[in-house]
């Protein structure tokens, strides 16, 4: 949400103090809505051509819980910076006015910079030639899915890769590579926001919905980040 002009004046005046004293955060715990989690789907490529997939955060790999949560926050942080590439084919890039294109370019560079730092870290940490991070969204299931369709809350079909490249029409759901479990016959619709929590309790056949490239959006600070 953009700042109001009067709030911006106050913020500017107090910025040195609140920044330096680490008081610059809003208190948006689970606000405005509890939303999906964002994870990293990591592909490590080794000198011998071997490829390994990791997922972060990972309950098993990061312990104690505080360490797990640090990794989880890094993943959410990368998502906050996420600015997907724009398509030149469908005119996304050319339709932007110069100021918006400039803003997108700056934010995209920052996202690439942070992602690059994280990929460099992962390559060094795991002795790989190259590490590639792709962001992944974990959609929250509603009550019908959990109780009637017996879908586990960590079911692989609830995870969806967030495209970093412009998507072609007809691209299906991007399922992450970091899962080894066998897939179900029909992926759940990769909704970008949860549907009603307690809809009609009659089980229905999940429809299919193609993944659209995320629209250019304002920077958000109200991510779910307790």
């Amino acid at each position, binding site marked *: 949400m953009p700042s109001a002009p009067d709030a911006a004046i106050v913020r500017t005046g107090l910025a040195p103090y609140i*920044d330096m004293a*680490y008081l610059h955060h809003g*208190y948006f715990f689970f606000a405005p809505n509890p939303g999906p989690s964002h994870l990293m789907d990591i592909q490590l490529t080794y000198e011998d051509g071997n490829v390994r997939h990791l997922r972060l955060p990972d309950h098993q790999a990061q312990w104690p819980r*505080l360490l797990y949560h640090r990794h989880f926050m890094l993943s959410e942080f*990368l998502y906050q910076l996420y600015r997907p590439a724009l398509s030149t084919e469908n005119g996304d890039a050319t339709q932007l006015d110069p100021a918006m294109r400039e803003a997108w370019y700056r934010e995209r560079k*920052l996202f690439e910079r942070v992602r690059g*730092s994280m990929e460099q870290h992962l390559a060094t940490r795991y002795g790989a030639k190259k590490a590639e991070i792709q962001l992944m969204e974990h959609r929250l299931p509603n*009550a019908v899915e959990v109780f009637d369709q017996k879908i586990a*809350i960590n079911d692989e079909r609830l995870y969806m890769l967030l495209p970093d490249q412009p998507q072609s029409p007809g691209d299906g759901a991007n399922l992450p590579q970091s899962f080894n479990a066998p897939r179900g016959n029909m992926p759940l619709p990769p909704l970008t926001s949860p549907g009603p*929590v307690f809809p009609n309790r009659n089980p229905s056949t999940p429809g299919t919905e193609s993944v659209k490239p995320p629209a250019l959006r304002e920077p958000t600070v109200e991510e779910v980040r307790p």
Partner: protein
Amino acid sequence: MSSPSLPDNPSLRRWFADLVASWNQFWFQPTAPHTLAVIRIFGGAMIAYVHVIWLSQLQDFFGANAWVDGVTSRQLHENDFIRSYLTYVTNPSVLTIHQLLAIAAGVMMCIGYKTRLAIPLAWFLTLMVCHRQTGALFGLDQVVMMIAMYLMLCPCGAVYSLDAYLKKRAGETGDTDSIACNISTRLLQVHLSIIYLFGGLSKLRGDFWWEGSAMWWSVVNYEYQSLDMTWLGRSPLAIALLTHITIFWETFYVATIWPRLTRPITLAMAVCVHGGIALFLGMPTFGFMMIVANLCFIQPSTTRAWVAWLGSRWQRNSPAVPSR
């Protein structure tokens, strides 16, 4: 007949006098340090623990090839006032010494040794880490920094501390009540009220808090979950009630925490909500520290009575030492 002018109006003058007296009493009435000392003990222990965790993954978070390396960290803060020397430091030995010092400061704060030095040191070293670790922080860091920032303003090591023990052994006695303790307590109380107010207001922008489903979307979040509470969803009424009680409590905390009548209920709710976050939503450290922060609304006399009761219970249950 003309009415008396404002300065001559006795009721207005009395109102102003009452206002000034209330203001002075609110901020400057000398207060005992017992509640703040308990907050200090838990806050210091948590700061030490936080730095132990950082230390365990020093190269991953601070090294030359850290998740967010120093250059990138500085670039993220080009347009603000967030600065940390740790964005320039990658030497493992220096980083280890830094973290060991921070752990020592946290432990000293906890046990109350050289408290007036230990708390500012713990605050500063943790601040530098927070400024370095953009991206890996969350509510826990906010609350421990808030606690340390206000505790360093007052002599909260005057009781329940090694400093107090050493002073007593040296035969020094003195009044522990101070205006500084009251100021620290009030700042903590006001800050905490603001946290809840804005937490509540920001939730009110979301549909799920209004329609009563937010609790469901919280318990089905696998990445947060530490204990499975999805069974709650079998009762939409229970989910809605829990959601609405939470949002009501959080938004109106700023009002209900002050009257004596509603304060115990508000604090009991804080324990339930944060206890729930600690147990079920995978944030035991954050949930625990929020409960500790809420202690600032407990009167020092009550804290003293509780600690004395706990001390007597402990003495009764500990094995008797045979006399020589």
